[in-house]
């Protein structure tokens, strides 16, 4: 047999194989087309990848999406997360939002933990009639805008607490932990100058005296302050029992310098970065004793869902979620729940369904304020919904002290703190 014979003999087989292959391919394309009719539910996630707080947002959302998909999706439709990095810039966030809606055809957007960014996106959610939920921005103005112009701004939902309700939670915790237990009487408010602290400070001013803490001074500083020595010296000169904080964007400096300068006054309040598990390392342990408000903590079983989420996050990404990791995870779940109930991804119907949300997530029971309230689409806060926590850094761990039902430790200060020195 010559070589050419072999080739000739092989030719029909080759043709047959090609035909068969084409048939298989055609069948595959067919089934793919069928699957495509089940269009996935796309959720855009806009946040800053390089910030510890922001980077947890797409990760938390992804875990929720994977869990939903593993249990069959939404009537056979998969949930798809599409992430965009906005570098916490309003301009970049707006571009990402436009691209998400117009080109990537997302059905809803989860966006940012920076109030200024969310305020810039709010009108765009209205113009493009696309639901936007923020997992971490706190300024009351976001939801006040909805009250002012409901028809245009109703697409925005705040999946985190408003500054006013955070301030109230801080005051409630301060009353139990400091006024009742330690007989503290006076406080100084120290907060950074930003959109989210304006309503925070306003509430601090009224609720601290109600809690039994007289406000001796109120210091607002620029978020790019690096040297806090003058600020702490000024605070010390009026001898308060406690410093009530409102710090987020400023970073580690106030905490580090509080320790290195050995300011003998405890700090309690909002310190967003302290809620990150990396804060101990970032401050070289200077955060020992710092008390901060949060809606969740690594070892606190706020709801039956909390600890399993934390465990999954740690298993997949090797670290603990920041506060907006918890909320982003919850947002995906109640967005999908709303889509199920609405039977549609249409913006207006989704708004109606979201307004009726009653979902137990990782941070508590999620329900939104009605449209006739001063802050529509903000979370209901209090016992039975979202109770909030007061945690303290102790020996490299975040220990919850308040409310006492879910406390897993006792208040403890580093040696340089002098409790009751002002008496």
């Amino acid at each position, binding site marked *: 047999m010559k070589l050419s014979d072999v080739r000739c003999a092989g030719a029909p087989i080759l043709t047959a194989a090609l035909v068969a292959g084409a048939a298989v391919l055609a069948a595959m394309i067919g089934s793919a087309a069928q699957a495509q009719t089940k269009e996935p539910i796309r959720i855009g996630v806009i946040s800053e990848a*390089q*910030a510890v707080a922001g980077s947890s947002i797409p990760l938390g959302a992804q875990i929720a999406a994977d869990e939903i998909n593993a249990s069959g999706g939404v009537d056979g439709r998969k949930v798809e997360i599409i992430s965009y990095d906005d570098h916490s810039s309003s301009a970049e966030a707006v571009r990402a939002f436009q691209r998400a809606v117009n080109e990537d055809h997302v059905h809803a957007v989860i966006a940012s933990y920076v109030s200024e960014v969310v305020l810039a996106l709010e009108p765009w959610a209205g113009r493009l009639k696309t639901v936007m939920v923020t997992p971490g921005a706190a300024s009351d103005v976001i939801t006040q805008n909805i009250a002012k112009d409901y028809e245009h701004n109703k697409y925005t939902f705040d999946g985190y607490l408003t500054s006013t309700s955070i301030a109230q939670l801080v005051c409630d915790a301060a009353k139990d932990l400091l006024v009742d237990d330690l007989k503290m009487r006076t406080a100084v408010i120290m907060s950074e100058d930003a959109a989210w602290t304006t309503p925070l400070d306003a509430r601090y001013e009224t609720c601290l005296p109600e809690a039994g803490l007289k406000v001796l001074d109120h210091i607002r*500083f620029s978020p790019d302050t690096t*040297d806090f020595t003058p600020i702490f010296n000024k605070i010390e000169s009026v001898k308060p029992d406690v410093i009530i904080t409102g710090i987020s964007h400023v*970073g*580690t*400096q106030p905490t580090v310098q509080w320790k*290195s*300068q050995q300011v003998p006054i405890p700090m309690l309040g909002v310190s967003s970065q302290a809620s990150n598990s990396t804060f101990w390392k970032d401050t*070289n342990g200077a955060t020992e004793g710092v008390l901060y408000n949060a809606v969740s903590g690594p070892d606190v079983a706020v709801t039956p869902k909390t600890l399993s989420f934390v465990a999954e996050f740690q298993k997949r990404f090797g670290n603990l979620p920041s506060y907006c990791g918890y909320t982003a995870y919850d947002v995906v779940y109640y967005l999908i729940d709303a889509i199920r109930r609405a039977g549609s991804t249409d913006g207006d119907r989704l708004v109606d369904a979201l307004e009726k949300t009653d979902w137990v997530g990782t941070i508590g029971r999620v329900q939104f304020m009605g449209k006739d309230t001063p802050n529509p689409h903000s979370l209901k806060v209090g016992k039975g919904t979202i109770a909030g926590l007061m945690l303290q850094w102790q020996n490299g761990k975040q220990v919850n002290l308040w409310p006492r039902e879910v406390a897993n430790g006792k208040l403890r200060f580093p040696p340089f703190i002098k409790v009751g020195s002002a008496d």
Partner: protein
Amino acid sequence: MLIWQILIDGFAVSALYALGATGFTLIFGVSGVLNLSHGALMVAAVVAAWVAGGEWGVSSHLGAIFGVLVGFVMSLLTYFAVVRPLQQSSKIREEEKEIFILTATLLWGIMISELIAYLYTNNAKTVLPIVEGVVMLAGVRTPANEVFTSVICWLVIGLLWLLVNRTRAGKAVLAASMNPRGVTLLGVELSWIYVGVWAVYGMLVGIAGVLLGMFLGVSSYSVGPLTASAFSIVVLGGLGSVSGSLIAAYVVGYLETMTAYLVSPAYRTIPALLLLVIVMYVRPRGLLGRR
């Protein structure tokens, strides 16, 4: 009491500014390079020291030494990878080289800061202080590390002065800053002077960075403000004049501290910037500038 607080606090901050600006002005004085990656090199040193201390768990001394070393290496890398190829390029016209180098160092700085943010997030990092605790100075409770910072800053500036004014190599550097061609005619290889100056600059940047990381902490966001503050101090003092920079550093440091204590911490940087604008109008070459 308040006056002592301002004096002590301002002194430490100013000493740090002085050390940071000295290297910046040295490079400009000798090689005419405005290194806009200055802040990025400082932040790189801080993050290196932080990684050594936090991730590898070495002692604060070793961490600090590692940070300084990284500042040193990054400075030489900046010179050999960014500045020198442009200086020696035959494709760029001589009079355009300065602007090319300016742009290149700016981009280089952005690259470093983005890389740091990518690898270690943009959270502020603080370096473990070498000296812990507080001391009482004239009734002011001062962190011991603040005293340590001032002492080291002035020690390094003193050593630099000795190096420039009392050694042969230093005199060659000084001569090169006055008349590069003359130095070449005397048989000194100009490119070696440049390498030497960038090496010294690297040490200064590393030390200033690590001290800053212990005292105040930095993040990748600090890159721009750090370059800007060194730049404005150097412009205020007179480009290329080391003593001018030292005086300017103290003017800026004390002006900022006084504003923070007497007016409000929120307006800390404003009077110094206003002063800079005024000096630009009245005396464009700065306090002690030669050109």
